């Protein structure tokens, strides 16, 4: 058993060190002999045991005696622990690849590959616009019984569905938006954009956007892209809205009247009420074929989801 442990440990260390590579070879020879039902007479086990005991004996005779006596059992324990931790690491690696977090979808525990938790940061809903890492409650986040018919939509009829719930003022929504655009462009998925006013006074932009979509259809997407790409302070200043609309050659007066109408305000309020049914706890929340991704994930995460690369 010790030689199996040694083979794995030295095999990994051997990637970086030639001296450990030689030990890995010795361990392999030992394992091979055992697998072919021959005794391991290479002296490798004794060498490793001798080295361990000679280190221990300098600290504690009692401990050395225990290790010497129960070496085989201890090796088994280490082997099981190693298999467990290896499986745990593999699981973490898989999770990081497909969910952007070692701990699983939207889970915010420590991840060595993303130590600052960037992939899980959201603008919290009902947190006065702060952008904390919110404890995962994504199990409840769902699109069931949520009516998205009033939100801007493109690529209708596609087999894949992407719903982006974000806020113009939130940096994490702004970070995720370009990746979602790239995904939509590559996969031609059915894309629904839903604005959720999580931070700052963005309702006016939502109202304006609604009216742009109402009167100009697909031109809404250029307008929407502009709002996410342009400096946030500029787009959030109500004094600049008319200039932005004019820049797109929209009928400014018509859009303003529409945006300020009671009907529009009611629709936008209803949209927010509808979005609250998703149990959203932060933006951005992106649904890809019903699976909710909360926080700005790396592009590969979205791609894996749409390619159905997620097995577990």
């Amino acid at each position: 058993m010790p030689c199996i442990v040694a083979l794995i440990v030295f095999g990994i260390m051997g990637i970086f060190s030639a001296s450990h590579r030689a030990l890995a070879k010795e361990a392999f020879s030992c394992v091979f002999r055992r697998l072919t039902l021959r005794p391991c007479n290479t002296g490798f086990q004794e060498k490793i045991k001798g080295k361990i005991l000679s280190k221990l004996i300098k600290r504690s005779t009692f401990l050395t005696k225990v290790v010497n006596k129960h070496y085989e059992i201890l090796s088994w324990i280490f082997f099981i622990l190693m298999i467990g931790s290896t499986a745990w690491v593999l699981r973490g690696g898989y999770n990081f690849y497909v969910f952007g977090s070692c701990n699983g979808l939207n889970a915010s525990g420590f991840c060595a590959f993303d130590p600052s938790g960037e992939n899980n940061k959201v603008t919290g809903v009902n947190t006065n616009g702060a952008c904390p890492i919110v404890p995962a409650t994504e199990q409840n986040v769902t699109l069931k019984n949520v009516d998205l018919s009033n939100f801007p939509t493109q690529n209708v009829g596609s087999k894949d569905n992407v719903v982006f719930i974000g806020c113009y003022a939130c940096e994490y929504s702004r970070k995720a938006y370009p990746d979602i655009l790239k995904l939509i462009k590559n996969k031609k998925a059915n894309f629904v954009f839903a604005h959720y006013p999580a931070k700052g006074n963005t309702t006016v932009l939502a109202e304006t956007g609604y009216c742009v979509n109402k009167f100009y259809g697909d031109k809404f997407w250029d307008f929407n892209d502009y709002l996410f790409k342009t400096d946030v302070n500029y787009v959030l200043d109500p004094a600049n809205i008319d200039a932005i609309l004019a820049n797109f050659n929209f009928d400014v007066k018509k859009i303003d009247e529409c945006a300020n109408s009671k009907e529009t305000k009611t629709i936008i309020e209803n949209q927010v009420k509808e979005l609250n049914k998703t149990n959203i706890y932060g933006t951005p929340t992106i649904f890809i074929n019903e699976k909710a991704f909360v926080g700005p994930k790396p592009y590969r995460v979205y791609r894996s989801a749409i390619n159905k690369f997620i097995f577990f």
Partner: protein
Amino acid sequence: MKDLNKIREDFKVLNGDKIVYFDNACMSLKPNQVVEAMNDYYYNFSACAGRSSHKLGDKVTKKVKESRKIITDFINAKSENEIIFTRNTTEGINLLANSFDFKKGDIVLITDKEHNSNLVPWLVLRDKIGIEVRICKSKEDNTFDLEKFSELVKGVKLVSIVHTSNLDGITNPAEEIIKIAHKNNALVFLDCAQSIAHRKIDVKKMDVDFMAFSGHKMLGPTGTGIFYGKQKLLENLKPFLVGGDTVEFTTYDNYKMLPLPEKFEAGLQDYAGIIGLGEAVKYLKNIGFDNIQKREFEINKYITEELSKFQNIKIIGPKDASLRSGIIDFYIDGVDMHQFAIMLDNMANICIRSGQHCVHSWFENRKIKNSARISVYFYNTMQEAEKFVENLTKIMKII
């Protein structure tokens, strides 16, 4: 004998007392004088001996001749023609096994604790031409059984036995063995690999027919050795390694072999090694075998006494340290002695040998897994022995 500290200064690896070297039965350390003699060859006259007629060639020829003379005197051979340079003892034994006119049914008598080098060549010959390999078993305490030998030697063509065993340090009574063998018309080959560095070997006095030893156990360079044979016997041997340097002339269909010793020294020789070996012999002579044995016995006795305090330690061979040269070979039932040796090395830089010491047959026969062997030499000190005992005691506490 020089002061011990002065002697130790000649061995670079011992300077600073970092290493305790107790693996002399495998390989002795090399004094600076030997290394310098070899370097001198490589730096100043690294040419061919014998064949090149220029200053450097002449110098190599002279130096090789000097070494051969030194070795001839060292073992008290009759003539330099009886000294054949080889790579080691193993090559010497193979030379004999393959050059001697063995026929099917001839008997070779060996002991039960021969080094693989004095076992395998005979077993191969048994399989090849059908000789019989007869084994003379040792007594209970591993010493030589002369009585049994006297019975077994009848009808034997060659007795091939170890002089001092690398297993337990016991020196076989060579002179008696040879007398008995000769009475029974058997020739005797003596494996002196282990004895040559620790006791005076006088081939004339012993009347031994063939003998071989290695340079590396007697302060000399690795890859050097000597095969000795009585001149008349050597002349009758047919060399098995032939080619360059072994012939006087050749035609496309004929050749004439050179006389002794060249006819056995095929190909370009290890001149630096041969010169170094000569230097090693000079160094050994200066130290003196009496001094060597005195130091070895002193240390062996102390370690033997200390080991005897542990009931589970079993010493291979007789309890009397004076019968075991500089070797203390021991084992503990149920303990892998490799681990023991590795621990000593890692804990205190003490180098000892563990395993079956190339005498697998003996261990297999007695169902002993392996042993730890301490082999001391004249440059070892009592302080080193005490350090060994101190660390051994620590290890014994965890077993």
